[in-house]
């Protein structure tokens, strides 16, 4: 679809088209990241909650549509509470699975029904903590829906030898988008099952292609080695181990780049906030693959120090391929729910007004 947004659909009012702008700087974020890392280490991880909030505030604040930034509203204490719970759950699992396989299975079975609740909780929290033009996002999914899409369907897909998995992935994306609202207006999404199958097939074909090429190169190399009599078993073992490792990373990066680009473009094309905004994503596989592979290499060869640069670069790329059409109604939205509560969060927040997450 090469149509620009303003001509593709008849519109009630003239929409303003604008690219998403990202103004974060790698050098500036490097300072934030490394200082927060040190403070997190020194405080035995406690400061990591503050670090997460500051990092998100930096990235949200530097992401702008029509010169208006996003805002991240969570407080460090909320993040800290969620982390403490996540650490306890993680430690229990880790210890149980090390002590006894049986105990681990029992815990996993107990955790399975709890996981949809945690997912909904996390989506609700993160949406509510995201604001644009002082209007918040919200997530309206419930336990039953999350159980169906995150547990039931993936388990059923197992019995189709994962042939139904692309359809399940479509359902999951659809569930998440259609339950997201901005200023009380729910998103509308109309994705195709066929697009998911095509994306998965193209990604798999690309991986097969990479493997075939590598096998041919490997066979030629082995032939050359055998012919020249340079066959040293020790050296060959190391070379093959390294080659398999590299191939694994590359195949993973390639399939992820293909799937992400195709699916993101499709979802953005088919999603809108009726009367408020329409979206367009123009990701391309090769530039995105180049971005992820060079980011990874930079992180490896800088021993992790290039992480802030890689993160900024990725955010800048994703912003640069995203276009938003904003309708005039977006300038006068009023969120009733939000107006009735205090911004300082002094009224007792629920015990579980948190995101249970290690990251």
């Amino acid at each position, binding site marked *: 679809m090469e149509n620009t947004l303003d001509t593709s659909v008849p519109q009630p009012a003239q929409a303003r088209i604008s690219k998403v702008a990202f103004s974060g700087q790698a050098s*500036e974020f*490097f*300072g*934030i990241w*490394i*200082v*927060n*890392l*040190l403070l997190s*280490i020194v405080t035995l*991880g406690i400061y*990591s909650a503050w670090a997460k909030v*500051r990092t998100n*505030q*930096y990235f949200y*604040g*530097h992401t702008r549509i029509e010169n*208006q*930034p996003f*805002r991240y509203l969570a407080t460090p204490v909320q993040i800290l509470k969620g982390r403490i719970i996540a*650490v306890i759950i*993680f430690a229990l699992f*880790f*210890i149980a699975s*090390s*002590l006894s*396989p*049986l105990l681990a299975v029992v815990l996993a079975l107990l955790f399975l029904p709890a996981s949809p609740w945690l997912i909904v909780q996390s989506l609700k929290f993160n949406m509510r903590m995201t604001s644009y*033009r*002082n*209007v*918040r996002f919200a997530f309206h999914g419930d336990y039953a829906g999350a159980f169906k899409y995150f547990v039931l369907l993936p388990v059923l897909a197992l019995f189709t030898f994962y042939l139904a998995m692309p359809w399940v992935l479509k359902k999951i994306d659809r569930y998440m988008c259609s339950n997201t609202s901005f*200023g009380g207006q729910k998103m509308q999404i109309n994705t195709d099952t066929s697009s998911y199958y095509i994306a998965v097939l193209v990604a798999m074909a690309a991986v097969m292609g990479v493997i075939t090429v590598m096998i041919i190169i490997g066979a030629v190399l082995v032939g050359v080695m055998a012919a020249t009599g340079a066959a040293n*078993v*020790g050296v060959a*073992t*190391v070379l093959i*181990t390294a080659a398999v490792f590299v191939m694994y*990373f590359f195949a*993973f990066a390639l399939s*992820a780049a293909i799937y992400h680009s195709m699916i993101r473009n499709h979802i953005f094309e088919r999603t809108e906030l009726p009367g408020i905004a329409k979206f367009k994503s123009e990701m391309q596989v090769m530039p995105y693959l180049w971005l*992820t592979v060079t*980011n*990874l290499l930079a*992180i*490896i060869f800088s*021993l992790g120090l290039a*992480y802030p640069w*890689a993160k900024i670069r990725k955010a800048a790329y994703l912003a640069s391929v995203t276009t938003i059409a904003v309708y005039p109604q*977006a*300038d*006068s939205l*009023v969120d009733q729910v*939000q*107006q009735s509560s*205090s*911004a*300082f969060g002094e009224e007792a927040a629920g015990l579980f007004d948190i995101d249970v997450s*290690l*990251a």
Partner: protein
Amino acid sequence: MSASPAVNGQFQHAGSSTLYRAVATFADNGQLIIRNSDNDTALTEATPADYRFGSVIPGLAVELQLRDGAIFVPDNPRFRWPQLSGTAKTAARLESHKLSILAAVVLSPLLLWWIIVDLMPMLASAAVPLVPDSVKQQMGQQTFYTLQQTALQPTELTPAQQAAVQYHWQMALQKLPLEYNSYKLHLYKSDFFGANAFALPDGTVVITDELVTLLKDKPDAILAVLLHEIGHVEGQHSVRLIAQSLGAALVFGILFGDPEGIADLLLGSGSVMLQSAFSRDMEREADKFAVEQLKALGKSPSAFADAMSALLSERSTDDQGSSTLLKYLSTHPDTRERIEQARQHDPP
């Protein structure tokens, strides 16, 4: 009347996307007044208790938040409100000051290294005595049962060979001051493990027929192997390995929980290497234990080196010297290094 200068910016009411060009001023008593700069009408007023400042983040404007949910954002991203306290600005100052950034670049890896290499093992050792014996027994029994079902077959050694191994075992148990008291030795044939021996946390020690046969001319070497395994149990290595790996997983999860794309995989391989490193440390500890106890029993520490040499020559057919890469993935130290270590204890 206003003590502080007027600040230009944009104002929004609570939950409203409508933008107003606005000017914020403060009265002497701290009262905030925000006026619409297009038509000079009042937008809102607030007492000091009803407004506060947002986080100070390098490169971003500091917003003024009102209790009812309205916000005012200065136009100039570099503007810092004079009312901001020093502590509110501390984090941002550290994050953008060259000296603190340099200090963080140097100190972060050093501290991380110290935590993983020294602090974690220390905490793990301290935590181990808290684990009740019943848990260790459960761990041992479950693993033993699984291995019996999958990798172990009944021994095919002659009663005389079995008795010889049991004799060394009993001697070690009786003569050594061991802390743990429910040791059990089992002999099994195992195609899966080959010539090998292992210890479980409940004191169960298994030595394979293949290893006994390999060392049949060196009775002291069998004793050395058994002592090495006892060393694992005495040092409570199974439980310590779990505690250390958990600690490392948590450190990486919390500090780098949000890695960039496939760097995730990289962190995964990092933690495998780390776990192998922990395991190698414990093997060295068990080696040291075996050598010391051999001396206590009046045997030559070179018996341990003999056992390792025998294993090395048996395996050298399929192991052409370990490369540097594989060394970091190995759960055991290099065998030649272990032989060297044991020989150093030889009386001259």
